[in-house]
């Protein structure tokens, strides 16, 4: 790893004392991002675990202005915040909306696509645990094929909605996928996004051990396996130019699936199907 640890900011702008579960992937993502974004940041978070674990009553773990928004409209709120900052001549503040999969890809999608289309000067982060964890772990559009959830014991019958492709189609300044197991890559992407004048989108894989059926200590390792088997590609689209930012080692997809309780009923045929689609995507074995 070539992170310059000595020069990372010492201050913990988020995370200490957070009331999330032990081993929370979302909290890991938040901590890594804040090391780059710094204290001149305003962050809006729609209803989600991340919003809830950030504080209750008159206490919060955040040391930057944080606002727990209504479910659907964090990107719209952020648009308003940016407008207010601009009219007051305040130019050097990062405006971030940080939503879960529901608050970005489903119920929050409308305001996300609106803000992206307007090329608002902000970053939207989708921290992805691939299910609606704050309400107990129900199926959402970001739940992958065959995954078991709290309201889908038979496994999801349709594929995960491709948010990176959708956001790329908006022609925004910057879109990137990231993973908490690759902090240097994630932090570089936040640095790039923060420098853009228009809209940036960062989609972070942040496993939830409760929802995924893994042990808390395995959170980072399973997240790593998702990228190493090829199912979670790390790439960026910078002003229209697409670059893969990490070359996976291509462990078997089965290694990744078997490590998780939510894929416990996946059959050999289904695993082979997934392996084949990954191989095809990366142009391997032809």
């Amino acid at each position, binding site marked *: *790893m070539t*992170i310059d*640890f*000595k020069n*990372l900011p*010492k201050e*913990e702008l*988020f*995370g*200490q*004392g*957070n*009331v*999330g*579960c*032990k*081993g*929370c*992937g979302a*909290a*890991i993502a938040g*901590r*890594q991002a804040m*090391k780059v974004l710094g204290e001149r940041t305003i962050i809006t978070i729609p209803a989600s675990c991340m919003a809830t674990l950030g*504080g*209750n*009553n*008159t*206490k*919060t*773990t*955040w*040391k*930057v202005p944080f606002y727990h928004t209504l479910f659907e409209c964090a990107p719209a709120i952020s648009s308003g915040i940016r407008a207010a900052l601009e009219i007051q001549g305040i130019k050097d503040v990062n405006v971030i909306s940080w939503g879960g999969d529901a608050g970005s890809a489903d119920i929050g999608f409308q305001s996300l696509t609106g803000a992206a289309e307007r090329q608002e000067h902000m970053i939207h982060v989708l921290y992805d645990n691939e299910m609606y964890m704050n309400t107990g772990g129900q199926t959402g559009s970001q739940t992958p094929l065959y995954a078991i959830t709290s309201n889908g014991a038979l496994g999801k019958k349709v594929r995960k909605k491709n948010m990176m492709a959708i956001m790329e189609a908006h022609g925004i300044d910057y879109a990137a996928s990231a993973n*908490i197991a690759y*902090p240097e890559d994630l932090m570089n992407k936040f640095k790039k996004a923060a420098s853009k004048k228009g809209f940036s989108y960062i989609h972070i894989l942040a496993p939830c051990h409760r929802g995924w059926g893994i*042990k*808390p*200590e*395995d*959170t*980072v*390792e399973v997240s790593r396996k998702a990228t190493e088997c090829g199912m979670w590609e790390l790439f960026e689209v910078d002003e229209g130019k697409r670059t893969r930012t990490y070359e996976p080692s291509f462990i078997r997809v089965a290694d990744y699936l078997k490590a998780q309780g939510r894929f416990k009923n996946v059959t050999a045929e289904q695993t082979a199907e997934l392996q084949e689609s990954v191989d095809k995507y990366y142009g391997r074995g032809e």
Partner: protein
Amino acid sequence: MAVKSLPIVPSGDPGALAEASNYSTWRILRPEITEPDKVNPIVTLYCPDGALTLEESGVALNYKFCKGCGICAKESAGIRMAPEYTGPKGVF
């Protein structure tokens, strides 16, 4: 009955959760740094709770914030998990 004194916009004080926290009651296992030279500083970025920080002397662990998830021990040499409670067990 007197109404409580609350901020006019419902909100929380920054960093107040950090001051109030003490996760010893959450832990079943606690990490111990057994070989400080072998600890990979990456664990400071893998800890969900900001319990591991990089000091001049190396990686330091603040038990006030640690929930005992075990990610650091898994991701780095030089840290192992030990039981939080080592006293008598059983139903009292």
